[in-house]
């Protein structure tokens, strides 16, 4: 996978698979600190210390459809290749925090990629989940809360044609502003 946005989608998917009802996704890009940080926190079923120790291995998975898990080992590998790290903190019954850190300027660092596409996909998948997004680029911030969106929508789903178009435009505008571009 050559986009961090795909790894991010994958990490949040793990939270949903773990039965989380709340997920917080934070991204920080900072040139001064030369860092790109991705932190995903959930209140899902969590893992024991033993499970956490194994989760970087492809042969650890709670899947029944396939004998290897691919998500976490891939992220572990790309962070290590880019002068960063993957930190995993988890408590059974409480939840999990995964933090992937990259050197922003590292030549092998995959681009963040299509974060708007990832967010739209996540919103479709987290219809019943309270999902919070905070993305900071050199001090500028974009925040989004699925609960606030849902409150405004009062039961109309994210996959409604007009809502989807609105969301697409909303994200386009906000990412443009986040990266210092002109707004419409």
């Amino acid at each position, binding site marked *: 996978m050559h986009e961090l946005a795909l790894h991010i*989608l994958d990490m949040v998917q793990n939270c949903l698979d773990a039965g989380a009802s709340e997920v917080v996704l934070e991204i920080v890009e900072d040139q001064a600190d030369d860092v790109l940080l991705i932190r995903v926190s959930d209140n899902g079923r969590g893992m024991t210390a033993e499970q956490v120790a194994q989760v970087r291995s492809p042969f650890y998975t709670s899947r029944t*459809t*396939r004998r290897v898990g691919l998500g976490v080992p891939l992220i572990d590998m790309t962070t290590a290749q880019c002068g960063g790290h993957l930190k995993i903190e988890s408590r059974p019954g409480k939840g999990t925090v995964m933090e992937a850190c990259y050197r922003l300027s590292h030549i092998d660092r995959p681009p963040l990629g299509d974060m708007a*596409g990832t967010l739209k*996909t996540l919103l*479709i998948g987290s219809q019943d989940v309270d999902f919070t997004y905070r993305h900071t680029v050199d001090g500028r911030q974009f925040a989004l809360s699925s609960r606030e969106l849902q409150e405004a929508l009062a039961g109309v789903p994210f*996959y409604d*044609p*007009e809502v989807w178009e609105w969301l*697409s435009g909303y994200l386009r505008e906000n990412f443009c502003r986040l990266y210092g571009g002109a707004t419409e």
Partner: protein
Amino acid sequence: MKSLEDLKKLREKLQAGNAVRQGGSTQIIVGMGTCGIAAGAREALNAIMDEIAKRKLRDVVVRQTGCIGMCEKEPLVDVVREGEARITYGHVTPEVARKIVAEHVVNDRIVDENVVAKLTD
């Protein structure tokens, strides 16, 4: 800049025009495990949604699921309609995704080239 206030107004407009769906006659389910994501499931889902939005289809429910164990055929997309066999499509590129909406959902013609499973219950 668009704001949540605009979204609320849009929703009120939809509700006033009775445009809000009453539940879907068609369900589209996209596999979103690591294997699916790596093969392009995000692009497939977003292409399906863009096509639904373009055609203003209001009776389609779109959902996600995890890996179902046919990783080599990802991205996988299921179309479920009442009283019909559940169709699983494989290798769903954005182009195939748009075709599934235009042909299967709108015109009732199954996209045979990409069918990997049919399930009748």
